[in-house]
């Protein structure tokens, strides 16, 4: 039994069903794009996208006169939802508490920025640095975090 077909929607005129004019319209559009439109490509290593100032990237620990602001209050490991901050507290000669070890397991970090919000001493910060791919699983230690990379 032959299938009956039913046309749905408006019937096209002969002029439109030939497609020639529409094809040339299309050709004009592609040529217009080629010649006049601004290209959206960002040539990555040389050009970089402008991110918002609130961008949450690589962590760093802020320093004042070469001494880290952190007092090892343990607020950031407490608030961290990914449980990626590990701090060992110690005591300086002037009886001040400081982190002997400050490790961030960057593989676990979800860059939520809650550590930054919790910090009372403005010590742990998230910078705008985003290119931090690595060849192996990395734990950022204190020496690494004390380098002020792209801080804001």
């Amino acid at each position: 039994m032959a299938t009956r077909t039913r046309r749905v929607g408006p019937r096209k005129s002969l002029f439109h069903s030939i497609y020639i004019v529409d094809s040339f319209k299309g050709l004009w559009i592609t040529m217009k794009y080629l010649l006049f439109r601004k290209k959206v490509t960002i040539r990555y290593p040389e050009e970089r996208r402008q991110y918002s100032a609130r961008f949450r990237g690589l962590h760093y620990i802020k320093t004042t006169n070469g001494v880290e602001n952190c007092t090892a209050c343990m607020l950031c490991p407490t608030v961290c939802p990914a449980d990626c901050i590990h701090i060992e507290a110690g005591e300086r000669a002037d009886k001040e508490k400081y982190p002997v070890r400050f490790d961030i397991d960057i593989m676990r970090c979800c860059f939520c920025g809650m550590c930054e919000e919790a910090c009372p001493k403005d010590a742990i910060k998230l910078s705008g640095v985003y290119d931090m791919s690595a060849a192996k699983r990395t734990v950022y230690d204190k020496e690494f975090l004390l380098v002020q990379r792209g801080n804001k």
Partner: protein
Amino acid sequence: MDITILVISAIKVVVIFGAVFVCVPLMTWIERRGAGLMQLRLGPSRLGPLGLFQPIADGIKFLFKEDREPAHVEKFFYFIAPLVCFIAAALTFAVIPVAAPVNIAGRTISFQIADLNVGILYILAISSVGLYGIVMAGWSSNNKYAMIGALRSSAQMISYEIALGLSVIGVVMVFSSVVSSEIIAAQAGTLFSAGPFNFPRWGVFLQPIGFLIFVVAMFAETNRLPFDLPEGESEIVAGYHIEYGGLKWSMFFVAEYTSMISFSALAVTLFFGGWQLFPGMGRLVALAPGMWGAALLVVLQILSFTIKTAFFMWFFVWVRWTLPRFRYDQLMALGWKVLMPLAALNIAGTLVLIRTGVL
């Protein structure tokens, strides 16, 4: 046989096919850059000035790829299929003249590899041989997608070869010759003048409908978008060359671009006066005296031919990134219900015009 003829023929073969095969990598670069720019990207732009060395890098990559050979293929046909495609695509160029014949020391040198007395028929015959490459590839791959691609290809090529042949017949009737050099020679002169503009006696002005049919059929014959159903990346992965890789795949690739170049040259030969100069270009020749004028004429003719062919090659790319792929039934309907009757009507109309003495 005169040894000089052999030497001249060998030089012609090397130069013309060399030029064609230099154009292929250039064409891939133009294709990729053009695609990029039309899609608001940049395309390959790293390697060399404007990314021009990208095809070289691609070629080196293909050369060093492992020559993989799937266990389930029909070996002999699997190996010769790319060759058949490639050779058929390249051979078309043999009868296309790139400049007018010149007399040097009493010897007429024609700027084409072979001036066959059945030039156009030869082109139609050879371009169908390319189909065998695709069918062989599809069948020998022993893969359902490849098979579907090959089947589509054979149906499509056979359908559109009719439209192509019929559109060419109109041109053959107007210029009353099937020899490519005679067709071009017949396109000399002015058809009509409109104010300051002289319209040359090119096939496109004598056979506008034939030209339209030819262009559409040309896309189908070269398996290019909007008629690239044999490949159909989105439906049948890559069609007939799905089981190919490395250098064998790149041969299909080169064959596709070579046939694009060949068909561009054919379109120019039939409809745009081949090596006939652009209107107004002839005045340049008068500036140079004697021998230099003749040499300049040849250079300008080759230049005209190249510019015209380059436009059509660009047109292939341009259309590819503009029009979406046709559905299979749409393709068949267009070929059989639109193009073939239109081509037949065109022939009838041309006949009437010739008999009444208009053309």
